[in-house]
């Protein structure tokens, strides 16, 4: 069963279309991430699912219940959907425990304390929002949303206001809490790392359309289009001509699937599929090193091939230790390793 099904939904604000004829099915899995740049309609999508706004056209289903169509609009308080906005949006006049128990009935107030423990804020129940740090406010907001035992939790860029180190630990904690409470959830983000590491399913959103969806590994390894490939992770997209399972491009001949028909294609070479060496290798082409971004565990190097094409290669730290010079201006040899994904080029 699907958790949320959206069919042909359109929504515009002040005459500007944000979503147009949008269709998406979110499986009833653990965490779904919706990935897209700002302005791609992510927040609007969540607001429609939560019932804060009504779609101009189309249908929204939660489970097997229609909550929005031309005739129906189930009010937000009847949907049982938890919502965690970007900055938490805690009620500023209520302390943490009363924020959490806002949606609870009187007899159920003990639950608020349990939830406070669950999000790791034991003992801070009487702090007011302005006395809590950004991360703590987010935790309270999550506990508040979970208090009503929602069928689904929506999280709108929950980590964007936190600093990098806090972000990773919050990500883990939230994944743990969602798993412990067995709550399906949708999280929108513009951060690929977040989407890849947190979610079981990722939906890539672009200008009001779902570009691709699938598991993080599938989306990374076998994206359905060049646009989707560029979206997730670093990608070298090169023009090539296929003949009998081998694509000829500026990197020489690279392996593509045997079932790839002959003709012009766009081939995807991930940076880690490039091997760099100071000595020539079989089928390698010469290149010059440009900018190098050093990340500790590995580095990303820009390489300029002799015909002027730029590609990005990932150099693991061990490779760097094997005395490969990774200084700007050095001459190296590049070789594409393994089988690549390619898409036939459409003739226009």
């Amino acid at each position, binding site marked *: 069963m699907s958790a949320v099904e959206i069919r042909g939904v359109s929504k515009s604000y*002040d005459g500007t279309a944000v979503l147009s004829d949008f269709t998406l099915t979110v499986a009833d899995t653990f965490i779904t991430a919706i990935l897209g740049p700002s302005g791609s309609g992510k927040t609007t999508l969540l607001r429609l699912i939560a019932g804060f706004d009504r779609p101009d056209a189309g249908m929204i289903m939660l489970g097997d219940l229609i909550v929005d169509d031309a005739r129906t609009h189930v009010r937000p308080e009847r949907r049982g959907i938890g919502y965690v906005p970007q900055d938490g949006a805690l009620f500023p006049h209520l302390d943490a425990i009363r924020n959490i128990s806002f949606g609870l009935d009187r007899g159920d107030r003990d639950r608020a304390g349990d939830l406070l423990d669950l999000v790791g804020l034991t003992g801070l129940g009487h702090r007011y929002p302005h006395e809590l740090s950004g991360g703590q406010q987010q935790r309270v907001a999550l506990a508040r949303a979970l208090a009503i035992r929602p069928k689904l939790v929506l999280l709108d860029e929950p980590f964007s206001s936190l600093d990098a180190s806090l972000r990773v630990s919050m990500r883990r904690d939230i994944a743990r809490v969602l798993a412990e409470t067995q709550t399906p959830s949708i999280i929108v983000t513009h951060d690929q790392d977040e989407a890849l590491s947190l979610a079981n399913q990722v939906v890539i959103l672009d200008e009001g359309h779902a570009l691709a969806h699938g598991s993080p590994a599938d989306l990374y390894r076998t994206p359905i289009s060049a646009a989707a490939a560029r979206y997730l992770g670093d990608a070298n997209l090169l023009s090539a001509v296929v003949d009998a399972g081998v694509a000829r491009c500026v990197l020489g001949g690279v392996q593509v699937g045997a079932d790839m028909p002959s003709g012009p294609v766009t081939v995807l070479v991930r940076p880690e599929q490039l091997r760099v060496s100071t000595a020539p290798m079989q089928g390698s082409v010469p290149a010059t090193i440009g900018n190098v971004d050093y990340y500790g565990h590995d580095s990303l190097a820009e390489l300029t091939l002799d015909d002027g094409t730029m590609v990005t290669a990932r150099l693991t730290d061990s490779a760097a230790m094997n005395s490969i010079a990774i200084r700007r201006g050095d001459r190296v040899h590049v070789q594409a390793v393994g089988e690549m994904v390619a898409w036939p080029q459409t003739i226009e």
Partner: protein
Amino acid sequence: MTSSTATATPAPLRALRARRGRAGWLVYVSIVIALGLLSPLVLVGLDARQAGWTEIHRVLFRARSQRLLVNTVELSVVVVTAAAVLGTAAAWCTERCALPLRRLWTVLLVLPIAVPDFVAGYAWHSIRPTFTGLWAAALVMTLSTYPLIYLPVAAALRRADPGVDEVARSLGLGRAATFMRVTVPQIRPALIGGSLVVILTLLSEYGAFEIVHFQTFTTEIFTEFQFDQAAASALSVPLVLLGLLVLTGESRIGRRGRVSRTASAAARLARRRRLGYATAPVLAALSALIALAVGVPIGTLIYWMQRSERSTLPAAATVGKATWATVDYSALGAVVAVALALPIAIMAVRRTSTARRLIERSTYLTQSLPGVVIALSLVFFSIRYAYPLYQTSLLLVAAYAILHFPLALVCVKVSVVQAPPRLGDIGRSLGRGPAAVFARVTLPLIAPGLLAGFCLVFLTATTELTATLVLAPTGVHTLATQFWAYQSEAAYGAAAPYALVIIALAALPGALLGLWFDRERYSRLATEQYSRPAALEPAT
């Protein structure tokens, strides 16, 4: 937030249409309220037209009118300058210095707004009968209007990012240079806004000027009103024009001076500087200011009460009745003003569009209408179109509500910002219906602002004289009208108790207001969370 796509439909109309679906009724309610508030402006025009062009010409283009204009401008320059210096200095002391008993000072410094201008004028004048003319008027008005600059400047100083000052110091600027080049630009919008309110107060002042024999358009209108109503209406025209001029000035300069906060994430409060050896002189200066603004009037009133024979003092019952009438009308006026301000505030804050801004801004126009003009227009209206209303308390309450509406709106707007619709959305998603969300989220958040609006209007209405004199039904005496009647006959002793009750009535809401403006509790969280434009509205 407003889309910049060009279409054939004019922007305000397009905006209105787009919003009709969601809470569009609020816009229509607001339009009705705004039209009601603006009706005095129309009525003044009608009234003046009835007086005829020749009459207008005769009244306006005599040498006397020129004298009145010069008086008004001179006084405005002197008072605004002095009040700006006093208000800013006081705000600097309470916000940026570690003042002993700081909370107390924040209340004391606002207290002069509880002393009606006409009482202050009377007090000074009764000490020395030669206390008259421009400088007398300037002294009285400076002491009673500096809080109008102190309050917004103090708020701006609190909001201003101290980090910017530190950066300026690190770039080699001295303390004085930092103040002039960095701090002043940050408080400039508040300073300008406050100054314009001071000018509008000066334009509409009657009682204090009458006492110190200083003529302005308002005193002249009042004198004419008793003999020749048409001339009074004709004189209202330049007064209204001056007010409108000031208001347009505000929107022009105000826009240029707008300061945005660049980094909202790391906002923090400025550390208050220890005064050290300067403590004693600063405290002495602040004490002197409050002694002049509050001590002199109260002291004089008590002196006159003690001096006079027991028999000339009014009976407690008469004072009681006048007190009740004052509280009754002022409270009603305040409730009506706040109730009318709420829909306009919600309309203006929840979504921005040209149409919504226009409606909201138009309601501020009443600020340019002096009390006497609004009162005259209501008299004109009731006599011509609704005679049964003439000489009823309804008109007085309406006048208070119209006159002080902008004050109510300012307070209510601030609090509506603190209750963004997103919080209501969250409440709904937690399973609560709209009514429960209003009671448990929206109301607690806006209640302090509503109360502040009520206090401000109540306080201003209690100390209001001109409209009350014109509109109070025959036989109804308020504290202000009683005081005025006695002091006109130079019965200082008999007048004093009424003035003291006014000050006592106004002091409590005045003190509450001082504390409200000084609040830090969740306003900081709110400004941090909701000043980000993206947070205010769904992605558009």
